[in-house]
């Protein structure tokens, strides 16, 4: 019975991580400050990494962490620092 309970708790943590990642994605798409959008995307990436951990894929966690948390935000911030930070309004 305690095994069943543990199973439910693991699934609950996974569901909570999924919902939080959805909120992060929504804000990343909606945000007009691009630096903040990159930070939201990094948050979503770390939630996905924990999700991969609970889906029993340590290989993917090891390759996904440097790529999505360590390198992609850096590369995107370089692009933003070389170009422009603000996304203009939809209406203009």
């Amino acid at each position, binding site marked *: 019975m305690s095994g069943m309970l543990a199973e439910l708790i693991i699934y609950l943590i996974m569901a909570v991580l999924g919902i939080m990642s959805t909120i992060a994605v929504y804000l990343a798409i909606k945000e007009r400050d691009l630096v903040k959008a990159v930070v939201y995307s990094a948050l979503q990436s770390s939630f996905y990494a924990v999700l991969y951990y609970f889906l029993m894929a*340590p*290989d993917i*966690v*090891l*390759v996904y962490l*440097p*790529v999505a948390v*360590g*390198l992609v935000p*850096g*590369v995107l911030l*370089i692009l933003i620092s*070389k170009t422009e930070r603000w996304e203009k309004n939809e209406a203009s």
Partner: protein
Amino acid sequence: MKLAELTLLVTLILSLALMLTFAYNYLAPTPEVRNLALFYLITTYNPQLPYYTVNSPEAVTAIVWDYRGLDTLFETAVFYLALIAGLALARRLYRENPVSFLSTNGGLSIIVKTVTKITSPMIIAVGASIGLHGHLTPGGGFQGGATIAVAPMVIIITFSVFYLLTRKVTTEKMLLIRSIGLIGIGLTAISVFIIGLAAGRLAFVFQNMPKANAPMGLPGQVNGVLISGTLWFFNLFEMLAVAAGFTMAFAVLMLAGKER
């Protein structure tokens, strides 16, 4: 314009429905697993089945570099083509002057610099451990290379990109290391075939362990230590190539637009 957006949305909904139709059986996972996966799991390290096994306890690396090795070779080709396309776009935008000044006022504060000095060797050690134990524990060439590539990135950010250049880490050297890695991957892929040619036996490209009709292969164990035949060499060369390729791309990206 409106029509294009509407068509796009309808196509999106239709393809989503199609995907869900195919995925109906998989919507919620079951305690069972598919037969193909069972085959991989049973044969990945099983001395009782000598003609099927890869001699690697790590099923993922076994699939990546042996069962589906040819796929991975061409995926690696896609990866390098994307990298080369990026570098070709930035060809005229940077110049690597022999920089004379040692930047002391560039970069972040002295605390961050000192911490980075201690942790960069640790990062490289962790990455090398991940890469060189790819056939035993989770990890492999891609993971190790991506992990090592973070160390030059952190050094560039904390010090300066010119600091890396004064330390003689230039794009030519990185190109050399990357080419060594690629040539190594290619040679490892045909190594068993060449051994078979020399010995006058039947052998295949991308063969690892001896098969029933092709009795050639690299050793699975050396002196009681597992190296899993070609997997070890693939991991080593892939790690070198990925780390060097990414380092080169970062240096070029940082230098772009800084002609002095």
